[in-house]
């Protein structure tokens, strides 16, 4: 195959969160990074007396953990405020949605299944000797991503 001319960077990515999987909030102005998770399938192996290699069988898709890095801010309705409120809710439910190449018609948008925020630090690790922007990373465990086209 000839070298592709379609490669892109993640500079146009759009990151959204939702507590109901229907109404979405674009947090691209706060989000710096998204780690989608491993996306693995459970497997099982067994060796038998006959044969040399193992028998390998496929199980279900495994749960995966996605990590989102956001700028820590104290505005109401900002990414930190929304994620922290979701974490503090009874079930810590959160859905993630990411368009790696941006919200242009025909591009892919990946939507997580209903997830649970499993890690949400209260604030950034404070360091008086640092001039870095305060960042917070939260983790959502979910059942995987669904790829769909942007209409």
């Amino acid at each position, binding site marked *: 195959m000839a070298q592709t001319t379609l490669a892109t960077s993640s500079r146009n990515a759009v990151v959204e969160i939702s507590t109901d*999987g*229907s*109404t*979405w909030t674009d947090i691209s102005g706060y989000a710096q990074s998204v780690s989608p998770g491993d996306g693995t399938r459970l497997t099982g192996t067994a060796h038998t007396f006959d044969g040399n290699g193992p028998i390998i069988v496929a199980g279900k898709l495994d749960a995966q953990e996605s990590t989102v890095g956001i700028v820590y801010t104290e505005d109401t309705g900002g990414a930190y405020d929304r994620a922290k409120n979701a974490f503090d809710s009874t079930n810590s439910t959160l859905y993630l*949605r990411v368009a790696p190449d941006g*919200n242009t*018609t*025909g591009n892919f*948008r990946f*939507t997580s299944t209903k997830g649970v925020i499993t890690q949400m630090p209260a604030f950034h690790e404070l360091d008086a000797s640092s001039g870095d922007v305060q960042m917070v990373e939260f983790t959502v465990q979910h059942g995987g991503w*669904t*790829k*769909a*086209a*942007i*209409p």
Partner: protein
Amino acid sequence: MLYIVLKPISPAEGPIIEPAVATADNPAPEPVLLDAAFFSGETDEERAANIQRLIEQGVIAPFDEAAPVAPEPTNPDPPAVPRRVAQPSEE
């Protein structure tokens, strides 16, 4: 104009729209249809271009709106000249 959903579509709001999938219980499901107004585009030309892009990507396809053959409605204005009645052959 209606379009059949062939691959999952992610609208700005709401859940993902999945295409109809045949199952053992329902081998011929009703197609999932979307109106042209559903698709993004600030102008008709822009919307048409976006729809065309999705068609080329195999995400949607134009829906043939030709309805199944239905009985013709009663003609309220019958022809002024009565139709000729078929005559039996003289042979």
